[in-house]
């Protein structure tokens, strides 16, 4: 089962980064960064399968693909932002983490503008 691999990788990386925390904190940060990357690279095929299911569902119910792709983009941005912010927070750089999250929020807001416009048009059309 993959979950056992994931947990073992996480534990090993945690132990190794604690060993190096005192003398060489930069190496411990790199190890935690690498562990997160490896765990995500292992999960890629699963994420891809889930997204395929969503695409087939939406094409069957002929939902407009714009909304779905925007949602997936937002999920991607949110994941990368979370990844970067968490690594910076682990390294003790709280302010950099908040700046990264701030940037991510702005990008997500920009991405959601077309959907807001579509919603407003819909509401305006409803009003007689």
């Amino acid at each position: 089962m993959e979950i056992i691999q994931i947990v073992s990788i996480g534990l090993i990386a945690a132990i190794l980064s604690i060993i190096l925390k005192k003398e060489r904190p930069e190496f411990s940060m790199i190890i935690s960064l690498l562990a997160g990357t490896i765990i995500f690279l292992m999960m890629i095929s699963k994420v891809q399968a889930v997204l395929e299911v969503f695409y087939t569902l939406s094409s069957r119910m002929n939902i407009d693909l714009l909304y779905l792709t925007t949602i997936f983009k937002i999920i991607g941005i949110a994941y990368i932002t979370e990844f970067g912010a968490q690594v910076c927070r682990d390294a003790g750089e709280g302010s950099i983490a908040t700046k990264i999250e701030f940037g991510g929020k702005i990008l997500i807001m920009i991405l959601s503008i077309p959907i807001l416009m579509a919603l407003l048009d819909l509401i305006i059309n409803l009003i007689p």
Partner: protein
Amino acid sequence: MDVGMIFKIAGIGIVVAVLNQVLKKTEREEMATMVTLTGIVVVLMMVIEMIGRLFESVRTIFQLY
């Protein structure tokens, strides 16, 4: 391969830490910082390739062009 990379980096980190202690005892401070810098550069070269792969895969999966 990936999991082995964690051990490689941990090994380099431990070696650099030990070398630093040794060099500090023999009063070669500047050599100690050199060793640390080279260790970090080597490790970063390995990690950057992995992070590039991560960002590339996220970009393709979520169509973040």
